[in-house]
């Protein structure tokens, strides 16, 4: 009996919409947060070069102010939530009207968007400060800051959107900023290639975004609305057909795959490292690439129902995420470029987030987004700090032993690495553990109360944890330990400087952002301590989930929450630690000894195993070639479209369509000759006169009509027009 009651309760749909349009000033006016950097973009664009600090001061001031507003909005949201529960604030105005449908533009402020405001503004602010040193003597310094501002504005605009049309706008704008900043040093072809690749790959995903958006527009919310709340409410209320949701969620998933670097559309992300390092930290690690994850979180009912996440053990989204996190992690092992290691690591971590959303662990995914932003930005900026000193990103050739020269950077990098590896008690531990719990796969050893039993995904997550710890150990060893291998030749860095003397520690404008980010990499995890362990008072646990996850709101599906488990946390930690230990043994002991014995540089290492074992060698080759995906995209798809396909289309244009016109004219003239005897001679004369030569001309010559034969051409067309007009007249007369 009680079972039936419980069922009835869980089926009931909230009647009232949990959205309001009046709240604290900071929530209602949250649109100021994106507006400030937008204004700063315009300001820097037009007046930046004339400013004392060439525009940087305006960008920093605007983002700092935005950050303050975001903090205030954060506190306002806490108070707002404590007062009346999870009630989102929506303010909108009419943007345009077409076909009697009104389209709004507005903001949707809830825990999710406020959290994003905080993450974006703080990382952006630190990156701004860092950049004043890092790209300090760049010749396009002002321009760089203008686009940092524009990116920040676009990203904030995106996360605040209250409708999917507006999200689409923000989505594309951040893409353009990414394009411009990846191609910042466009003099070099690889950089502009990387920029194009990023934009075009994302365009492929955008096909899905456009179609998915349109499908939702017509299917959800009673039809014809882009409003996210209305669409979500309609789905939660069961008013949308499953078929429409499947189409929409699969199409949108394609967009997520490109923007958030999911396998197989991830290949642009490592190439995007051609951009300046601060850009990689801000755009290609902490914020823009999580836009796809954010979109899933924002439109969660679409995916939860469309992908049929509840009560299942496999679905498209979770599986894409699981594959991405493992395959991305594997690729990180064969990279020599420190930024590429981090890039593949980002791919892998984004895989974690998507997998978490795929198994129904909403809060875990969003929480991982939150912690990842800090420790990954920390790592990227740290790698930039090293590269700034050695003027290269190549770990094997130009780094090694850097801890002696850059002890402060070293410490922050270690903190970031530990957090990324998910070791207790740093930020990554908490969020990664929560994802593993959320799979519900631990149910093998007792029910965890998740949305399903995603055991496969749990195993992939575990394996990924070991991989992460291992490749970061490799990265730390190659960069900071062993002997310094740099300074040997004229290594060029991003600025074209030549290496000189021993590397030295970076200045305060680089170090302070690193301190702050590594501080956050330590503490961010405490925002969502798991409940039920009795280690801390209950009022301290799950704070993040409490304020961010829209539980009980009308636009969020009813999802189950898995119970945290001691055993899982311990096993996961052991696995991660195991990965680190194995890698540490290999690098810190074996490789270290080998390199000291032979005094060989590490350039040829570490492929001892892949040289002696054929299978391992093949695997290594596949990884070095990035699963041959780029070969396929660039040499097959792109080359075919640009080459044979485009040329064939143009050939058809010149030799078929244009020629058809000529042929038709020729035929018309011949037809005209047949009626020559019965129609007044003088009428036809004009045409035939000109066309006599045409009839004699071979088809070959017709194809190459040039200005000398214009008269022929004229005759043909006139004749054709006349004959067709005649045909029409005859038909009308009938």
């Amino acid at each position, binding site marked *: 009996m009680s079972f039936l009651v419980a069922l009835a309760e869980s089926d009931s749909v909230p009647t009232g919409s949990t959205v309001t349009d009046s709240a604290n000033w900071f929530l209602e006016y949250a649109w100021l947060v994106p507006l400030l950097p937008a204004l700063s973009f315009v300001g820097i664009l037009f007046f930046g070069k004339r400013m004392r600090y060439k525009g940087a001061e305006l960008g920093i001031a605007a983002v700092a102010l935005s950050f303050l507003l975001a903090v205030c909005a954060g506190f306002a949201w806490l108070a707002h939530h404590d007062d009346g529960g999870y009630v989102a604030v929506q303010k909108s105005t009419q943007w345009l009207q077409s076909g009697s449908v009104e389209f709004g533009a507005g903001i949707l402020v809830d825990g999710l968007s406020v959290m994003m405001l905080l993450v974006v503004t703080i990382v952006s602010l630190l990156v701004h400060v860092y950049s004043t040193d890092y790209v300090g003597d760049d010749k396009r310094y002002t321009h760089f800051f203008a686009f940092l501002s524009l990116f920040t504005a676009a990203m904030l605009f995106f996360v605040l959107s209250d409708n999917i049309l507006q999200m689409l706008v923000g989505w594309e704008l951040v893409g353009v900023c990414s394009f411009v900043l990846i191609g910042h040093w466009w003099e070099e072809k690889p950089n502009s290639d990387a920029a194009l690749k990023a934009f075009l790959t994302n365009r492929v995903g955008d096909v899905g975004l456009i179609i998915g958006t349109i499908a939702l527009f017509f299917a959800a919310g009673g039809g014809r609305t882009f409003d996210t709340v209305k669409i979500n409410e309609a789905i939660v209320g069961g008013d*949308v057909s499953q078929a429409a949701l499947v189409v929409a969620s699969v199409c949108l998933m394609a967009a997520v795959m490109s923007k958030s670097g999911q396998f197989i559309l991830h290949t642009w992300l490592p190439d995007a490292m051609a951009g300046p390092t601060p850009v990689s930290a801000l755009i290609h690690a902490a914020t823009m690439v999580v836009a796809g994850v954010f979109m899933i979180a924002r439109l969660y009912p679409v995916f939860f129902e469309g992908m049929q996440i509840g009560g299942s053990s496999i679905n498209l989204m979770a599986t894409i995420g699981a594959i991405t996190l493992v395959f991305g992690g594997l690729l990180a092992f064969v990279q020599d470029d420190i930024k590429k290691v981090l890039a593949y690591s980002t791919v892998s971590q984004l895989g974690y987030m998507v997998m978490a959303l795929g198994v129904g662990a909403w809060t875990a995914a969003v929480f991982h987004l939150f912690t990842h932003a800090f420790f990954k930005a920390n790592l990227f900026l740290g790698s930039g700090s090293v590269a700034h000193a050695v003027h290269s990103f190549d770990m094997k050739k130009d780094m090694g032993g850097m801890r002696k020269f850059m002890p402060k950077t070293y410490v922050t990098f270690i903190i970031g690495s530990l957090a990324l590896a998910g070791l207790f008690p740093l930020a990554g531990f908490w969020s990664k553990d929560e994802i593993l719990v959320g799979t519900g796969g631990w149910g093998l050893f007792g029910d965890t109360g998740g949305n399903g039993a995603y055991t496969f995904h749990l195993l992939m997550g575990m394996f990924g944890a070991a991989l992460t710890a291992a490749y970061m150990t490799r990265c730390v060893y190659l960069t900071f330990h062993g002997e310094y291998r740099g300074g040997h030749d004229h290594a060029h860095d991003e600025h074209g400087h030549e290496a000189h003397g021993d590397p030295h520690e970076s200045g305060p404008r680089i170090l302070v952002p690193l301190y702050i980010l590594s501080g956050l990499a330590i503490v961010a995890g405490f925002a969502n301590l798991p409940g039920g362990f009795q280690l801390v008072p209950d009022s301290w646990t799950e704070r993040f989930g409490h304020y961010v996850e829209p539980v009980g709101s009308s636009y969020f599906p009813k999802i189950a929450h898995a119970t945290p488990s001691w055993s899982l946390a311990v096993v996961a930690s052991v696995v991660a630690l195991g990965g680190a230990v194995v890698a540490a043994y290999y690098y810190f002991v074996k490789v270290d000894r080998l390199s000291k014995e032979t005094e060989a540089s590490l350039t040829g290492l570490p492929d001892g195993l892949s040289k002696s074992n054929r299978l391992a060698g093949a695997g290594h080759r596949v990884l070095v070639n990035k699963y041959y995906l780029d070969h396929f995209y660039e040499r097959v798809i792109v080359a075919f479209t640009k080459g044979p396909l485009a040329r064939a289309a143009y050939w058809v244009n010149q030799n078929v369509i244009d020629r058809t016109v000529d042929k038709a004219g020729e035929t018309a003239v011949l037809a005209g000759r047949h009626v020559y005897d019965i129609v007044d001679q003088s009428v036809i004369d004009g045409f035939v006169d000109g066309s006599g030569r045409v009839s004699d001309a071979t088809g070959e010559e017709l194809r190459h009509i040039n200005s000398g034969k214009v008269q022929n051409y004229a005759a043909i067309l006139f004749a054709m027009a006349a004959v067709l007009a005649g045909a029409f007249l005859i038909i009308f007369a009938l």
Partner: protein
Amino acid sequence: MDTIADNNWLLTVLVFAPLAGALVMALIPQHDEQSHKQVALLTSLVTLGLAAFLLIDFDYGSAGSLQYFVDTEWIEVIGAGYTIGVDGMSLPLIALTALIMPLVFVYSWNHIPEPGNAKAFLILSLILETGMIGTFVAQDLVLFFVFFEVVLLPMFFMIAVWGGENRRYASLKFFLFTLFGSALMLLSFLALFFLTEAETFNMLELTEIAGAGIPRGTQLLVFGGMFLGFGVKVPMFPFHTWLPDAHTEAPTQGSVILAAVLLKLGTYGFIRIAIPMLPEAAEAWAPWIGLLAVIGIIYGALGCLAQTDMKRLIAFSSVAHMGFVMLGIATLTDFGINAAIFGMVAHGLITGMLFFIAGSVKERYHTLEIKRLGGMLAQAPRLGWILGFVSMASLGLPGLAGFWGEFPAILAAYNPAGGLSEEVFRAYMVVAAIGTVLAAGYLLWLLQRTAMGEPPAEFADDPNIVDVSTTEWIAWAPLLLGIVLFGVAPGLIFEVTDPAVGESLHKCLEAGCQAADLAASSVGGG
């Protein structure tokens, strides 16, 4: 449809003001080039002022009605009237024309193409302006036809006299293609006159009749005639082959006018004449128009990828862009047609701007061969950035004008009007969406090859390669601003066109909208 006759002198003055300027110039001796330039610019500015007054005075509350309406007898013997008026559908296009022309004259200030003769060149441009505005205000088929043809000759001469090496071929091709279409169009107009038994060329009346009384088979034929007439002008695949040649050979000003305004005469004809007057035939033709539209999108984009000449590439991109406009029209929904009008204006601003840039590149590098160009961002950074910006607009970046022509057209294809097959149009939708990828491909590839990288050796120290000049800034700024303005506030255009589209097409939309709503609710509920 209601008509409002207040201030009805305005449109007549607006249409013939450029012609008056041309007459004044005819009296000025040919060698006094400066006076010619001044008079031409002044005339176009007066016209722009009148258009601005029109924009201010226009009653937006009744944008669905024909305003400033004049209806007097003209050629009594054939029943043709001097009937003119403007509603929300034509207003944006008139404004676009009035805006483009002064910019062309500013640009002409120090860019009279070879072989000179500013007098003839500028007079022709002014006659063009009268023809273009006239076409957009005409509410009588004969009057429409006359203005439609008035446009033809000046453009023919512009290409034939001031064009590039292959100008004779290109100009004749342009002329004959269009004339061929016009012949069939005229025939269809005559058919409408006789077959409706109303014996009128008045477009209002013919719209009210909406083909009643004409057998279905005949309607299809009559529509076919118009389809060829307007389709050649658009140009729709496969009638587009005149366009790349005309654009490549035309002087910069000619290309700008051609792209910005002339192509719109065709699409405007569809939504003002062909569809409202023959709704039943339109429905039968729509899937085929849609098919040619999406073929044009893909085909035009592939053509772009194959080009080695910058100007020819931009010309081919028009085929693709007009494909989106025609797709919007083919859905026969108010949504799609609004998108089409927006697309026309956006394409006018963006592609007009691209041709301006091509002209400036040619002037600096004396070539448009993409292989030889490069490093523009280094040598002429502002020019390079403007090219980048306009490329982004052209590929349909949200937040800039191009997006609002493309995305709503794709959206409309998801749910076409009542009698049209949803499956077919959804397939078109997917193809059109794929077209946006190719558009990004050819535009960014162009940008990479021309603007990025190091400057090629042959131009590295060329003193000719300078950044954007003052005249160029003046001519370009309004277009660049327009691209941003309409991208951020698309409502400025949609709100004007929406009532007019609803009103003008109500005969064929009545059925369509209901069915669309039903379809939407069945998807939602099922």
